């Protein structure tokens, strides 16, 4: 049975419908991310779960209880905001203690729990400091401890890493996941950063124009995008306009060659136009073990990105990208050289129209 269940949720602000028929079921202890561009409705869904917005239609259930109309302060939800939102008039310890005081915990319990939480976020030496005396990363850790202190049913994180610099973002991301695993708390994480969502989550919901385009594990989202939007939004993609040569045999034609589709072409007829795609890392300049197909191209440019080298190659008159590991002994073919690009048939993505 799902711990958090959103059924047919919609939300309109005036004539603007920002969330449309949104359904989601989250198991206890699961870490689910909402991923999407700005304005896709991900934060609105989170705010409805938190109780800061009321759905125009649909129901929200937490642990079997209908909380759709329950005020935010009665939901027992921990929330971490993008802007930290620590109370400036309170010290770190007082911030963490706030929820416990509101719940009416006794002094000994508050003191013990605050100590535990500060130890969990590794800031037990900064309990007496005020928020303005902390760095952004430290403030967000305190915000996390404050949200977790009253032992909430659900943890909601609204783009908690967006205001931090790259290095802190990665380390805090790992810490959030470790703490979530340790406490086993059901968590919803909102982000527009695909790397963040894919690296931290059990499952990812990719949102687009107020709807959930796809719900799946990070690998499913990346390797088998359900919609054209998901394919384009998550990761880099090389797309090719193709035509179905033989629908029954699963034969496609693009870039002047015939290929066999990795999955049956249901609902399509021979001659239909179709879009196919290949991830940059699915292509290689040298034939690998599983590669059974290839394209003809001409090297345009190379970008050295550290661990990865990105090549730009012209195929069928259009530039496409391919990524290779920066392995020792690898020599780049000169720019302008004709080359063969190898790939495995199973990496070919057939995008729905």
């Amino acid at each position, binding site marked *: 049975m799902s711990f958090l269940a959103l059924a047919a949720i919609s939300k309109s602000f005036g004539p603007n419908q920002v969330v449309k028929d949104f359904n989601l079921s989250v198991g206890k202890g699961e870490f689910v991310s909402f991923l999407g561009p700005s304005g896709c409705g991900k934060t609105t869904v989170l705010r409805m779960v938190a109780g800061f917005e009321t759905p125009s239609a649909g129901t929200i259930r937490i642990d079997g209880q209908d909380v759709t109309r329950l005020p935010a302060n009665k939901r027992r939800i921990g929330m971490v905001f993008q802007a930290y939102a620590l109370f400036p008039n309170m010290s770190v310890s007082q911030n963490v203690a706030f929820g416990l005081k509101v719940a009416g915990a006794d002094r000994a319990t508050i003191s013990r729990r605050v100590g*535990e939480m500060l130890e969990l976020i590794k800031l037990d030496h900064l309990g007496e400091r005020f928020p303005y005396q902390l760095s952004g990363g430290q403030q967000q850790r305190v915000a996390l401890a404050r949200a977790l202190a009253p032992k909430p049913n659900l943890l909601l994180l609204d783009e908690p890493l967006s205001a931090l610099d790259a290095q802190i973002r990665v380390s805090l991301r790992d810490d959030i996941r470790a703490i979530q695993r340790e406490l086993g708390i059901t968590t919803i994480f909102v982000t527009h950063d695909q790397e963040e969502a894919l690296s931290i989550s059990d499952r990812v919901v990719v949102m687009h124009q107020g709807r959930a385009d796809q719900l799946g594990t990070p690998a499913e989202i990346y390797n088998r995008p359900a919609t054209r939007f998901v394919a384009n939004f998550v990761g880099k993609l090389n797309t090719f306009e193709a035509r179905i040569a033989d629908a029954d045999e699963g034969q496609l034609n693009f870039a002047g060659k015939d290929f066999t589709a990795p999955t049956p072409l249901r609902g399509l007829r021979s001659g239909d136009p179709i879009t196919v795609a290949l991830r940059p890392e699915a292509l290689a300049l040298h034939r690998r073990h599983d590669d059974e197909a290839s394209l003809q191209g001409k090297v345009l440019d190379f970008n050295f990105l550290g661990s990865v080298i990105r090549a730009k190659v012209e195929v069928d008159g259009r530039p496409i990208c391919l990524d290779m590991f920066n392995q020792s002994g690898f020599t780049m073919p000169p720019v302008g050289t004709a080359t063969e690009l190898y790939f495995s048939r199973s990496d070919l993505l057939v995008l729905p129209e």
Partner: protein
Amino acid sequence: MKTIRLFPTIITVLAGLYFLVPLIATFKFSLEMKRGELSFAAYQSVFQSDTFVQVIGFSVVASLVAIVLGALLVVPTAYWVRLKLPKVRPFIEFVSILPLVIPSVVLVFGYARIYGTGSFLPLTMTETGLNVLLVIGYVVLSLPYMYRAVDNGMAAIDIATLTEAAESLGASRLRTILAVVFPNVRSAIVSGAFLTFSISLGEFVITSLLNRPAFGPYMVQIGQDYAYQPAALAVMAFAVTWVFMALMEFFGSRRPGQRIFPRLRVSRFRRVGS
């Protein structure tokens, strides 16, 4: 090479003289009550007057009541507008600056018409009623300053997100206001309060037309009857205003949670196992 900015310097010196010369002259004059020597006799004379003690007491109480009333009106309004009605903010701001546009005399005549004889609420017929109208008048006059101070204070701390954070931790709206909103806009309220106090203390038009025994009309009356005491009163009024400006600056520049005087703090939350 250091450039001497002649014109701005001249302007600054002239402005300083324009401000300081009358003040110094008034101060010097206030010390010359006794022929041939400088003394504080005029100040002594002012403090020995029973009327002075009465009017200053009345004005202080009326100003303090106006501060409390103003804070109770402005803080929840500014909070609610920022939280739930952001679109109404320009309108509220416009209303808050109306007292700067509408002369006080118009306000008092409005009071006299609405709350006069034969009105459903004849406040002008009793002493208490007149005092109530005076305090409300002070609240109205200080509204532009109080509202701006409090609204700026709220803008500085993103009050909407803090409210949501408090609510997600289980706090009721009342608890959020008392534990989060008020402490974080305290400096702003104090700044607004000092401005209200300064305005109310020296206010003349409303106080005089409502015939209240307050400091403003007293100063004018003294000016007609005596020579040195009004000068002493003017210097004292300046000194009080400056003290309040300094206090406002002091409270306004303090960070939330920062103490006035540093003190040793003992941790109330000890580490587990320590």
